Each structure stands twice: as C-alpha cells, then as structure tokens.
C-alpha cells in the first residue's frame, strides 16, 4: 500500500497537504470528500460521472496528468469559472504518477 502527497487549496483559500491512497481506486474528488475539504452536497454531486462540474479544480503544479476525455472536455465547456488549467477532480485517478499534485478547488456554482 502506498500513499502519495497531494496539496489541495480549499474554497476558503486554505492549503491542505493530504495523503491519498493509490490502491483504493480513488479519484481526486473522492479524496477531497474523504478529508471533508468541501461541504457534503457541494462537491461530487453527480457521483463522479463527469456530469456536473461541482468538483472542478485548477491544477497549479506542472504534474503530468492524463488527457481529458470527451466527457470531461464537454462538461468543462459548459461549466462556469473555467480556466485553462481547469480539470474535473472526479476524472483524475490517484496514481503514483501524480505525486506532488497541487490543485485549488474552483468556486461553488451559485
């Protein structure tokens, strides 16, 4: 079992450095939920199907992430507060390759 370190800036601007397990088939949105870094019901609303943008985050590190799928691309094209470094947390799998990832949660949609 191996954990990796991830830095997450929550919606209040507070930085959290957390351990994320690579062996539990988790994604970044689930890590945020497991540490309760955003209130339940404000993140991961669709459950991780790339069908809402409640887990949108901005990637601040130059970590090499897998390409966006068509679904993620399409959802981000309809989301608000989107920047060039926007990703959906639910589409980022926790693997050893993303050790040191640093992200910032996008604001909650009104």
């Amino acid at each position, binding site marked *: 079992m191996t954990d990796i370190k991830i830095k997450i800036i929550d919606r209040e601007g507070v930085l959290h450095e957390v351990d994320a397990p690579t062996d539990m088939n988790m994604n970044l949105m689930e890590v945020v939920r497991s540490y309760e870094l955003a209130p339940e019901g404000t993140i991961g*609303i669709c459950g991780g199907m790339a069908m809402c943008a409640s887990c949108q985050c901005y990637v601040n590190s130059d970590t090499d992430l897998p390409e966006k799928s068509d679904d993620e691309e399409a959802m981000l094209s309809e989301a*608000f507060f989107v920047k060039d470094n926007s990703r959906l947390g639910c589409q980022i799998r926790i693997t050893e390759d993303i050790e040191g990832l640093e992200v910032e949660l996008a604001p909650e949609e009104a």
Partner: protein
Amino acid sequence: MIKTDILIIGAGPTGLFAVFEAGLLKLRCHLIDALTQPGGQCSEIYPKKPIYDIPGFPEVLAGELVDNLMEQIKPFQPGFTLGERAEKIDKLDDGTFVVTTNKGTKHHAPVVAIAGGLGSFEPRKPILTDLVKFEDKGIAYMIKDPEVYRNKRVLIAGGGDSALDWSIFLANVAEEVYLVHRRNEFRGALDSVEKVQELKNLGKIKLFTPAEVIELNGREQLENVVVKMSDTGKEITVYIDNFIPLFGLSPKLGPIADWGLEIEKNAIKVDNTLDYQTNVPGIYAIGDVNTYPGKLKLILCGFHEATLMCQSAYQRIHPNKKYVMKYTTVGGITGFDGSVKEAPKAVVKAID
C-alpha cells in the same frame, strides 16, 4: 386540495419504492417532484448508465430501474404532482400537514416523507451582470411554450441536447435563431448535431462557436447581448428579443431547508435507530436527502429506509391497530385497483 396518507416529496427510486411498501400496508401515496417525469436523478442525469449494486440485478440501466419501479407500484395507484416544487409546509392543529407547491397546489396528509435526493433540479445560470434584472424580460432558462418565440429573434446558449433540440425546433418558429457555444463540438445525439449543421447551412440557424455571451444590454427589456468569439477575441453585438441559456440543471435543497428541520452537511438529520423520522414528528426523510452516522447515499439503502418509514407511518396513522409484517410471498399483493397477485397454491392431491 389533494388528500393522501403519505405525501412523498421526490419521485426518485426511494420515493417510488415507498409507494410499494405503503401499499402493502393499505396506505395511499401521492408524490411531488420538480421534474416533469418520475425517476429523479436516474431519469434526469443518467438514464442510460448502468447500476451494478441493486440487489438481484447484476446490471440494470438507471432508466430501466425507474420503469420497473413504476410497474411495481402501479397497483397502488400513486398520485403525482410533477413539474412543481414543494415550497411550504404548514402543520394543522390535528397534527396533519399541508404542503403547497410553487404553483399553489395544496396537498394534505398525516405523514410527509421527504425523499428529495439532492434537492430539486434548478437551471444552471450563467454568471453575467444584470442576469436577474432581465429574467422574464427576455431571459428564460426553460422553454415552456414555444409559441412565445414565434417571429422573435432568439439566442440560445449551450452545447448539450436541449440547446441543440430547441435550436432545431425554434428554427421553424422564430424569425432568427442564434446558437452560441463555448466549443466547436456539441455533446448531443448524432442526428441532432447533423440537423443543426443542415439548418446552419440553410442559414436558418446562425452559429457562434467557440464563443460566449459576455454582456447583456437593455433598458427594461433585454435588447441585445454581446457575444465574444473565443478564438479571435472579436466582440459582436447581437440584437435579440430572447436569450435562453440552456446549461443543464443542478440540484438545490431549496425551500425544504427552511422547514424547521435539523440540517447537517446539506442533508436532513433523522433518527436512524428507529424510523428515519426528522426532528418534526410526522415528517420523515429517506434516501439521499437524509443523514445519520454511517449514512451511505445508495439506492439500496434508500429502499430499506423507505420500508421502515412506512411501518412507522402506519403506526402514526393507525395508533390503535395491531399489525405484523407479512411476506409478499405469503400475503400476495392486492392493489387499490382491485388487482391481485399471489403465489400459486400448491396442489394437494393423492397419488393412486
């Protein structure tokens, strides 16, 4: 006034299954849902996606699950108030409740079961200055009556099925149809995409992609919007009568949050040691909308919660009646419509 035994708020899988369990206890149900079709998220968000953890179904599509539940509860003749959002609750002196929707429909019941999932689905609104000012003055988030747009200049924003389908439909109704989307690619059924392409070639739909509406202008009524092309940065003023942003729906707990119920983590706190009742006796919360220690937002957990809720509701409605749970295999199912389903009787016959 609609009268029933258990008023269920939310017609998702948990709310639908509650009708079945209530029916076994000869209790009638009526459901309210903000969406225009039953099924909740299963119908609205992911009807074509498979679910693998419904006991007894190795794989079932969310839409199929809803169809099956509707079939299962049919004998118990549930009533539906669809396309209306439960807005207000009043407790009467006799301990019963009246729930009023946003359209003023009133429902009276001794028991209210909130099976509201993540809340009611509200249109996602783009972030634009003066958006609220022009609501109903040129801006709408849903198309209720397409005739409103006859011979009007309409601008639709969005890249999903509803943006495509309404652009196609309004192309033959409105004077001008503009479609604005942030990308060149659309996410929709292939034939809708092709149809829009065809109408664009015919000049019946004017397409702005990749582009975004960045400004709204007008005195009282909306008069024009500014569309910014994302690739060139060029800004174009488009004179229109109507702007329809179609960015899908997102759930909001909404007015239920103000019903005096204890809320924690955007969910309603219930007594999970007994019957999923809230802090207000007679109001229950079941399925994804509730929370308690160890809560899991799973359809199968919602089914269990609905079942226990119905037993408690029965005792509340009939405090002096004795009752024990019966297996459907033993008792069969007698619908309010007179239909009877029961296990075939074993043959008792001597063999010579």
